[in-house]
């Protein structure tokens, strides 16, 4: 199993540009998450999904959109990128939410908006 994969690893965007961060998992997990990690900080939840076709906002959803058309994929869309969105983005997946089961994390995408 590849686990959780994220592309790209690095990206530089200009202010106002848009992009999609890709996330895929091959563990047949129902729950998937997007987090951002600002320098020197912990992870903050952007959006999560409890299954295909179902998504919900986390702690910091503004400026982002998600979709979940399949169990495997959970892309994160940035519209009109702003410098405040400079961060490292982590995707994670889990068998079930709100549970004892650990979340499996991808390697992260480092995004810089200038």
């Amino acid at each position, binding site marked *: 199993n590849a686990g959780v994969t994220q592309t790209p690893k690095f990206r530089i965007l200009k202010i106002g540009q848009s992009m999609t961060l890709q996330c895929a998992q091959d563990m047949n997990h129902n*729950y998937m*998450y997007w*987090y951002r990690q600002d320098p*020197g*900080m*912990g*992870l*903050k*939840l952007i959006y*999560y999904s*409890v299954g295909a076709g179902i998504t*919900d906002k*986390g*702690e910091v959803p503004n400026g982002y959109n998600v979709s979940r058309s399949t169990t495997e994929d959970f892309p994160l869309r940035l519209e009109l990128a702003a410098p405040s969105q400079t961060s*490292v983005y*982590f995707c*994670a997946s889990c068998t079930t*939410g*709100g*549970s*004892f089961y*650990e*979340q499996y*994390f991808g*390697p*992260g995408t480092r995004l810089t908006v200038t």
Partner: protein
Amino acid sequence: AQTVTQSQPEMSVQEAETVTLSCTYDTSENNYYLFWYKQPPSRQMILVIRQEAYKQQNATENRFSVNFQKAAKSFSLKISDSQLGDTAMYFCASSGDNDMRFGAGTRLTVKP
């Protein structure tokens, strides 16, 4: 809503010594779980240890153990016989209904 607080931004320990990282949390959930994750310079998030809140017995995992004080909402991590490979950021996290909240992290350096 859940909040997780780690009051020690940085700590250091000599190799082979013991170190304790602090974490407090607040939650309105009745059923929740607590975790410690390690993030080495590679940025990969690695689960260190987890605790079910309804269990009184403290979790242990080899050199890692927790001191879970439910009434005080405290969840500290003890690392025994520290090794150079333990150098990393450590995040405390609380899992509720559908999401997980993380603390700001403690940067641990193990000195030779």
